[in-house]
């Protein structure tokens, strides 16, 4: 079945270079019998959700400084409705994972992710979180955060420029805009972890 180009009013298909993932997502939705024509209620939900993404402050190293620049005056993340950086995972919508994740940090990151409320998203920001980056050969660096948590958007760069971070943020917004929250849930990953420990 051919996939229709997803239409998002405020973010044109042609304006983006990386569209495969969104087509994949649609193909998946189609294949599992979900109606891609998103209802009005869903549109409203998606509109509000994608324009008010609250990031979780999670920076372990260099990339975090660029993230701070995003929040500051010149780049001004507030234009995307994403300036309310939360210090508690329970209040955040997505986690922009900036910086190397080491073996010692890995369980902490996993727990923080589990503490976030659904729907939650992950942007792997910087070479380190995508693949281990310059530290790939180290004895104690995780080779990509996708070993621990599911990643929605991969953002290469060491560190990525603030403009690139915005691009990643917009890709995440598109992803949210084509999703359908009411009715069939499109989040296919089953909970792979045991939710018990979080209750402690």
């Amino acid at each position, binding site marked *: 079945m051919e996939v229709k180009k997803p239409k998002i009013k405020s973010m044109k298909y042609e304006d983006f270079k990386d569209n495969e993932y969104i087509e994949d997502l649609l193909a998946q939705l189609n294949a599992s019998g979900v109606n891609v024509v998103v209802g009005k209620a869903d549109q409203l939900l998606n509109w509000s959700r994608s324009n008010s993404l609250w990031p979780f402050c999670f920076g*372990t190293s260099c990339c975090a400084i660029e993230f701070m620049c995003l929040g*500051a*005056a*010149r780049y001004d993340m507030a234009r995307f409705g994403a300036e309310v950086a939360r210090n508690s995972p329970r209040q955040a919508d997505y986690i922009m994972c900036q910086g190397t994740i*080491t073996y*010692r940090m*890995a369980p902490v990151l996993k727990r923080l992710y589990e503490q976030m409320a659904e729907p939650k998203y992950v942007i792997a920001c910087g070479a380190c979180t995508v693949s281990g980056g*310059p530290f790939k050969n180290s*004895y*104690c660096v995780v080779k990509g955060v996708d070993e621990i948590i599911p990643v929605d958007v991969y953002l290469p760069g060491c560190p990525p420029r603030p403009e690139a971070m915005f691009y990643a943020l917009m890709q995440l917004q598109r992803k949210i805009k084509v999703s359908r929250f009411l009715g069939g849930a499109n989040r296919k990953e089953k909970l792979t972890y045991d939710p018990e420990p979080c209750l402690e």
Partner: protein
Amino acid sequence: MADLKEQIGKLCPQAQFDTEGEFLLITIDDAQWHPLAVSLKRELHFDQLMALVGMDWGEALGVMCYLTNTESGDIVHVKVSTANRETPRLHSVSDVWAVANYQEREVYDFFGIVFVNHPDMRRFFLRNDWVGHPLRKDYDASPEKNPLRLDDETNEDYTCSWVEDDKGNVTKKHGLVFDFDEYVINFGPQHPSTHGVMRYRVSLDGEIVKKVDVVSGYIHRGIEKMCESLTWPQTLLYTERMDYMAAHINRHCLCLCIEKAMGLEVPRRAELIRLMMDELMRLSSHLLSYGCLTMDQGTTTAFFYGFRDRELIYDIFDRTCGARMSMSYSTIGGVVADVHPDFVNDVRHACDVIEKNMKEYHQLFTGNVIARNRMVGVGTLSREQAVDYCITGPSGRASGVHCDVRKTHPYSRYEEFDFDEVTRTGGDSMARYMVRMDEMLQSIKILRQACDKLEQEGIQGEYCAKVPKMIKLPAGHWYQQVEASRGAFGVYIESDGDAKPFQKPYRMHFQTPCFNLIGVVDLTCRDNMIADLITITASIDFVIPDIDR
């Protein structure tokens, strides 16, 4: 050097000397090491332990200790080793120089050398269930041994130490990190005010901090080990990712060290460009710490001011180096490309703007009554403590230590410039903050002079020396220090002279300023309020990856 040799020879007749290298090398047996350390400090005033480098020489394990006399600036280094690889033991000098406490824990973590009489021999960087000691040459790096573990680490409630009695018998003893009835709260690793991933376990009495136990290593990336499998120019990359707020400066340091080992002459103009980049970096770093310190105390506006002006500096880096952060600009022999034609104008402009805005910063924050109440007299560090814990940089100078490497051991043409070493005597959070603010003015002063010099020597010109394709260093070891944004940054390199198929460092160690800074958190926070812990750590201003490497 001959003088020193004679004096030390009198103190300890068993010591062997080597005057070939850049500093006097003393080789000594472990049995005499502790008495020698005591008399070096007492008689010859070697009051600061600059670096303690763990080493694996194949047949022996040991340490290299770099000592300095803060009055005369003399440097000596001591080599202590043990041939026992199964249960290597050396005597601790943490009772002589307080900074050795964490340094020795690092060496224990990486090499498995146990320091006898050390109060607290726990691992420092790696998980407490880690198998093996990674920097040993015979370390088994197979992932089966140390897989990615996703279970939570257990808290370490017991310290462990090896104590020697009068007869020389060593026994292992356990102590408590916190007493059973103490009220301990966890702080970090994911906390916005720790400026990264640092974890403290804080024991409280009401709101008063009784003890802080530092749990580090959440961003330990194993840089030193990875360097051992790369060529010399490749290792430069990691210097920028430790203290990313001193990226140029750290890289400059490693370049200087390798150039010193090669005997390479760097064009004077390249040195000048490096110097300018260093000062820009320092400005940017101090602006960031202004922003973070203010934000930690609730002044969000001041954060925006600091970041606004940093963008000017980022623009300069962007134009010349092609990147905002992690610039990879210095290289062995000079810099990788010439500066942008507008470089000098941009720098002048940035200097003018920042100098003008400094007044605003002071109006906004420095005079504020809340800021003063929270910072004046809080977290005081005396001069003696600063020397003992080897606190350098703005934090050291705030306690009145003259520790600016640009003045004490000038490098890269710093001796040609007219600037002051900013010192204060308060030693409290306010003094640390003010030293930083005043240093920014000094950096601007240096930059203005450098702009004039660069114009005289040509806005475009020679920027890199001729460097052989394959970089080979003779066998030996070298140590180089520079003044980074947060203190003296040192690089220790050792080469075995072997160059097949290409030469790799035998050992590379980074003596980072923040590693020493973390040593005084407990000291400065004790008996202050828990809320002051945030102010104090922000005023000490560390960058966590610089601690953990």
